[in-house]
């Protein structure tokens, strides 16, 4: 088995009395696609933000490409982020910039690429998420929610990062576009050899893109296995989630 590109070891994170992550252990290797399942509010987004260094874990370690990056700042942190792409759950597009400037943001700023070249590359990447050149000069506020999501996706993959986080990539998309996004994620992993960590509630998407599936529950990874085993995991929590039943061990906190 190849060496993991990213490892989370015993990661804990609380907000006041709210103990969100209680010792998360997970890893992903280059060329592999990991899908994380978990109920709403279970801490999936918080886990990604800790992995990226947008939040600092209270305890535990984040290891990227063999280096402990948990408390990295400045140059070391930049070096890591240059190799990582992130699709935020909310899109997080810059509303003062046009669509293409959003997609090409890293090329224009960190990489100092010429604007005309950056724009060509942005339009090329927009095509991959099934958006035409006509949206390039619009502002994020002028396009639909699903289109914003895809623009954000284009921004996350434009530099062909080694590690990509997708926080609910297919939420809010029609089934055809969603499937195109699934293919795109697979292409990033299989053709470009990236490691992908996706969060999704969409089981069809999970089955299609995942090599491995893991489930986050009460701040820990309670199950992890090959995607093919998701239907016979032998874990009641996973079964309940996969079949979307309200009855079962997972009860909403009221």
């Amino acid at each position, binding site marked *: 088995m190849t060496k993991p590109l990213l490892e989370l070891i015993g990661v804990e994170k609380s907000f006041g009395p709210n103990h969100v992550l209680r010792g998360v252990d997970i890893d992903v290797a280059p060329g592999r696609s990991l899908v994380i399942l978990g109920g709403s509010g279970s801490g999936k987004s918080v886990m990604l*933000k800790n992995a*990226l260094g*947008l939040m600092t874990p209270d305890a535990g370690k984040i290891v990227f490409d063999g280096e402990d990056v948990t408390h990295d700042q400045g140059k070391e942190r*930049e070096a890591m*982020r*240059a190799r*990582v*792409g*992130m699709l*935020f*759950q*909310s899109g*997080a*597009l*810059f*509303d003062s910039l046009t669509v293409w400037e959003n997609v090409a*943001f*890293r090329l224009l*700023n*960190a990489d100092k690429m010429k604007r005309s070249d950056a724009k060509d590359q942005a339009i090329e990447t927009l095509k991959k998420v099934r958006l035409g050149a006509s949206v390039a000069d619009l502002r994020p506020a002028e396009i639909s929610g699903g289109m914003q999501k895809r623009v954000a996706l284009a*921004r996350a993959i434009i530099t062909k990062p080694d590690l990509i986080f997708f926080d609910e990539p297919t939420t809010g998309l029609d089934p055809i576009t969603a499937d195109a996004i699934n293919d795109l994620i697979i292409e990033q992993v299989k053709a470009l050899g990236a490691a992908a960590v996706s969060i999704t509630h969409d089981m069809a998407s999970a089955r299609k893109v995942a090599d491995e599936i893991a489930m986050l529950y009460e701040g820990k990874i309670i199950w992890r296995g090959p995607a093919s085993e998701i239907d016979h995991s032998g874990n009641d929590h996973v079964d309940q989630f996969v079949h979307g039943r309200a009855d079962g061990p997972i009860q909403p906190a009221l």
Partner: protein
Amino acid sequence: MSDASTTSSGGFPNPLAWLGRGTLGLLSEIGRISIFSGRTGLAAFSPPWNLTQLWKQIVAIGFYSLPVVGLSAVFIGAALALNIYTGGNRFGAEQFVPNIVVLGITRELGATITGLMLAGRVTAGIAAEIGAMKVTEQIDALKTLSANPFRYLYAPRFLAAALTLPILVLVADIIGVMGGWLVSVYALDFDSTTYIRNTVDFLTMEDVSVGLIKAVIFGMVIALMGCYQGSKSSAGATGVGRAATLSMVGAAVLVLAANYVLSTFFVQIGI
């Protein structure tokens, strides 16, 4: 309300606990603002500079503030002339209106009025904009795209405010003096030529510089308060609104406090 440590038996806040907590809160807030200001200053005074962003902010902060600054200044100058005339009348000193107007405007009112108006227009605007970026995860997105928010967002606003405030104050000085002249000539029967001659004779480079140096400091305060409150804005429209209000109040009070401190300093060194 049910927190036992802050409420005494009667249900009123325990004043000592309240005072203690308030003081600690204030101290740590000052600490956080200082660190934030230090990091912004460092980003502002060291390369690389983001010139595109700087230019955008100069236009947003400087150019678009011209109307509000001009209008405020003309009314302040006019009211000042009127009041000095009435006050001076009591001991036959009406003829000093042009002198006191130009002194008051250049040393004091031009800068304070500009500072206060921009604490409203600019600080609240910056806080709302940065706050909205914070709560929609755009600041996190900036970081993941290797753009440092101190360089990309805060430093350009800081520099733009520090650079444009003196220009705005200069404009306020000119328009404020004009406001005084208008009232004096058209309402108080001053002779226009004499009024202008007295103004020019009494005007000194020192007085003007005092106002301009104050303006640089006010500009820094205005931008820093907006960026700081915005950057720690909590989620939702209420969070952003609160950040805008807090930043505006903070900037206005700090502008007035800084004005007093700077005035004392300039008097001490004899300017």
